[in-house]
């Protein structure tokens, strides 16, 4: 099974040649934006495959030969992206089948979400796909974005929406608009997205297929989902149980309330189930439920950096240079179901001997406002060596006068590498703090803007570690 799903999905993420059906030279049209995405990425040397625009009314676009029909396409075409009106899609699918193309992204909307007639067309498309071994993403979606290979079917132009850099996070979204907004936002936040898939009405490729695929995708450390509804619950549960044993899955499920549920069902024609049932499914399959957008990416960031360094337990050590922030973090530890570590006598002794008398050798450890980077090193050294500490949250208020910014960044990065305990950092502040936070993240330490968010992200790591421990025992 493994190789089959990997082989089936490959052309979506790394095609040898893409046919853009409905490509046009009219600026702003979907078929133009998608063509331009590929063309520009090819020019930049990121997209390495061929580009074959298909449009019966054109001879060439931007120097590319335009094919009159699918029939004319060269034999190496392994991905078709369709953006022509819905009523023409079934016939085009038949041509695609004849041409032997095995992967199709249908961007076009106006199918199942509009009612019976659309559903009938979807069924027809699916039957053709089924009979010919074609996998389909969509319809009614923005498709696929892979920064490493230059695949970009997101029909929102680059001058209106930024694209994120690559990274170990996969993002899967039922909603295309949400996916596009998220990519734009992730780009701004400098969060790396390795693969994005928006599957819209998911007549074929769905959450379960993607989970099975991502199990084998070494580029991806953590998979995030924006889910409105699931069609085949059993298939979803089985696939979720398979992937969560290998890598973490985070889900943001909308339609939590009655109102939300109704909105979801009219949106992509899918069914949104009762929220309590989703809670049950997530608990049983080890999927971590995100409360909101921010929570989802806070978790994703922590897992992206620390998936292979999960905490052994739930005892948290906190180091801070500001007392108030330490108290906030301690409150969050209780609130998110974690424990404050009881420092061992050796650690307390070690800290007392090496600290100046006014620093606080407890948990939270307060290195206080006149700290330099070396005092942090002492505290971290003590925590890292203490068998009672499972994970460390380090609050760095970069504003204090004697703290050498680059030195503290190097120290945190050094311990992140050499210690087997996960470290997350909290840096509260404005633009200057942001600048250092980015530097710290570049070096593999996830940074959060508040103690609450830092501790909550750590709680996600602890929860997933507990789940893995549990399933290993079964």
């Amino acid at each position, binding site marked *: 099974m493994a190789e089959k799903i990997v082989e089936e999905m490959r052309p979506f993420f790394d095609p040898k040649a893409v046919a853009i059906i409905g490509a046009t030279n009219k600026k702003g049209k979907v078929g133009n934006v998608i063509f331009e995405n590929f063309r520009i990425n090819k020019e930049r040397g990121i997209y390495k495959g061929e580009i074959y625009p298909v449009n019966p009314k054109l001879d060439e676009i931007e120097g590319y030969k335009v094919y009159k029909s699918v029939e004319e396409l060269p034999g190496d075409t392994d991905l078709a992206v369709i953006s022509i009106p819905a009523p023409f899609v079934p016939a085009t699918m038949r041509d695609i089948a004849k041409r032997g193309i095995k992967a199709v992204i249908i961007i076009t909307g106006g199918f199942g979400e509009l009612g019976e007639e659309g559903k009938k067309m979807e069924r027809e498309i699916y039957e053709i796909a089924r009979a010919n071994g074609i996998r389909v993403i969509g319809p009614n979606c923005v498709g696929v974005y892979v920064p490493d290979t230059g695949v970009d079917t997101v029909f929102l132009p680059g001058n209106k929406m930024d694209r994120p850099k690559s990274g170990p996070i996969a993002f899967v979204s039922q909603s295309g608009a949400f996916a596009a907004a998220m990519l734009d936002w992730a780009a701004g936040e400098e969060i790396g997205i390795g693969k994005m898939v928006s599957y819209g009405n*998911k*007549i074929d490729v769905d959450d379960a297929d993607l989970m099975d695929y991502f199990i084998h995708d070494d580029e991806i450390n953590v998979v995030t989902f924006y889910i409105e509804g699931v069609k*085949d619950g059993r298939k*979803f549960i089985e696939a979720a149980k398979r992937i969560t044993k290998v890598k973490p899955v985070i889900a943001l499920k909308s339609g939590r309330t009655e109102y939300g549920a109704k909105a979801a069902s009219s949106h992509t024609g899918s*069914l949104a189930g009762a929220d309590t049932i989703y809670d*049950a*499914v997530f608990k049983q399959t080890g999927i971590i439920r995100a409360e909101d957008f921010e929570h989802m990416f806070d978790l994703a960031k922590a897992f992206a950096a620390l998936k292979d360094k999960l905490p052994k337990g739930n005892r948290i050590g906190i180091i801070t240079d500001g007392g108030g922030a330490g108290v906030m973090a301690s409150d969050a530890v209780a609130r998110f179901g974690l424990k404050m570590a009881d420092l061992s006598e050796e650690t307390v002794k070690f800290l007392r001997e090496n600290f100046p008398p006014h620093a606080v050798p407890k948990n939270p450890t307060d290195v206080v406002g006149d700290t330099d980077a070396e005092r942090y090193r002492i505290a971290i050294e003590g925590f890292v060596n203490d068998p009672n500490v499972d994970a460390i949250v380090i609050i760095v208020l970069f504003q204090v006068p004697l703290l050498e910014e680059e030195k503290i960044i190097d120290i945190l990065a050094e311990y992140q590498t050499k210690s087997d305990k996960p470290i997350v950092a909290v840096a509260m502040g404005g633009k200057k703090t942001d600048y250092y936070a980015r530097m710290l993240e570049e070096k593999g330490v996830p940074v959060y803007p508040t103690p609450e968010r830092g501790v909550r992200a750590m709680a996600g790591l602890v929860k997933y570690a507990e789940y893995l421990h549990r399933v290993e025992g079964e």
Partner: protein
Amino acid sequence: MSAKEKALEVIESVLKSGRTALVEYEAKQILKAYGLPVPEEKLAKTLDEALHYAEEIGYPVAMKLMSPQILHKSDAKVVLLNIKTPEELKEKWEVIHENARRYRPDAEILGVLIAPMLKVGREIIIGVTEDPQFGHALMFGLGGIFVEVLKDVTFRIIPITERDARKMIREIKSYPILAGARGEEPADIDAIVNLLLKVSELVDDLRDYIKEMDLNPVFVYNEGEGAVVVDARIIVKEPVEKKEEEIGSDYKERCA
């Protein structure tokens, strides 16, 4: 006969009589087949049978009138408790039938359940509902206000593992009441785990037939003393011929 065969016998006879709601007695026959703890009760069709069963079970007894038209028995006042003597039973036999007639003149009466008076325990509720996406889900919570007002319940998709069952019990907010708060003895948690697992097994086995199920209340006694299903309600459905495969549900085949 296997548990499933016994259960199907009950279900099929209910469906044959044009009903989908089982009366308590029928529901408990199914529970019993799957080894769930139900009281030693007998369905009496006549007063003589009732007197005989009461003697067998031993006074005091409880009487519950079984009618497909009366599913909310306490509303109709057809549950009479603590009957201490044969004389009282004779008198209450008339009363219970009169109450039923007054509530629903057309009520078809299947008999009167003669049951032992149970020692009161901590009340829990176990339920089953069918979700259109994920299939049958199992609910657990404490009874009374905890479910009615506070909605302090938790769900899992069936089938569940023992670990799921233990987590369900611990994750409700009112768990301290079961664990033994304020010097109270802890409840028999293992008995609840056993109940949850058996309900999961039963529903997994009969998933084509079970639509809804409520075990409410279940009395749970102190550690080591077990639990007993006091009342039970099951709604069944005609098993549908497997619908023509929905789009995308031929996954296993694809992956074979």
